[in-house]
């Protein structure tokens, strides 16, 4: 079983839709949770990170973590064609300087 599971999609939505991207994780020792965005043929770009259960908002993006159910979500409001990318969730923090474990990414297309 992978430590971080993510539905690879692809996911296609119309412009303006609310997008929900989800991951589950199995390692109870994970302390922090990240979302990365990766455009085609580019490196991953950190969108958001959070340490605790609850919501964290940044503009149109909201990251949600539920540690009791080991569930990580990213919501994108008013989605734009420029949001079309692969979104990677990641977890880590078992020890100081520990590795990140990534999900396999969800490919999102926002259609104009």
């Amino acid at each position: 079983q992978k430590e971080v599971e993510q539905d690879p999609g692809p996911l296609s939505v119309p412009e303006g839709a609310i997008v929900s991207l989800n991951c589950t994780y199995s390692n109870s020792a994970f302390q922090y949770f990240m979302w990365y965005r990766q455009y085609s043929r580019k490196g991953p770009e950190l969108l958001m990170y959070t340490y605790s259960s609850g919501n964290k908002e940044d503009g149109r993006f909201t990251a949600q973590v539920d540690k009791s159910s080991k569930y990580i979500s990213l919501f994108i409001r008013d989605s734009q064609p420029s949001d079309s990318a692969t979104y990677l969730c990641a977890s880590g923090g078992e020890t100081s300087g520990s590795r990140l474990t990534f999900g396999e990414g969800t490919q999102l297309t926002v259609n104009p």
Partner: protein
Amino acid sequence: DTAVSQTPKYLVTQMGNDKSIKCEQNLGHDTMYWYKQDSKKFLKIMFSYNNKELIINETVPNRFSPKSPDKAHLNLHINSLELGDSAVYFCASSQFGRSETQYFGPGTRLLVL
């Protein structure tokens, strides 16, 4: 002004050859990483160095040898390349103990023929 840079961007080579990929960061970070991303976009850590010392060494064939001449550089040398080594290799950096805020380079696309 590029934060994490990698050279080369593309590498096409024959099986059995030896090749190197270079990485440099100008963020003042002290921890650097190498990741491998396969064709399904799955990103997996290979190595991590903190201040020129190896701190993470995942199960990677010993044909892969990282080298860190200083904390701003982390190079990856691959011996006796195999078809299965074809992938995109990403370098990343962060402050030590802040692996939740890693910055990635643009990647090196390696194709082994």
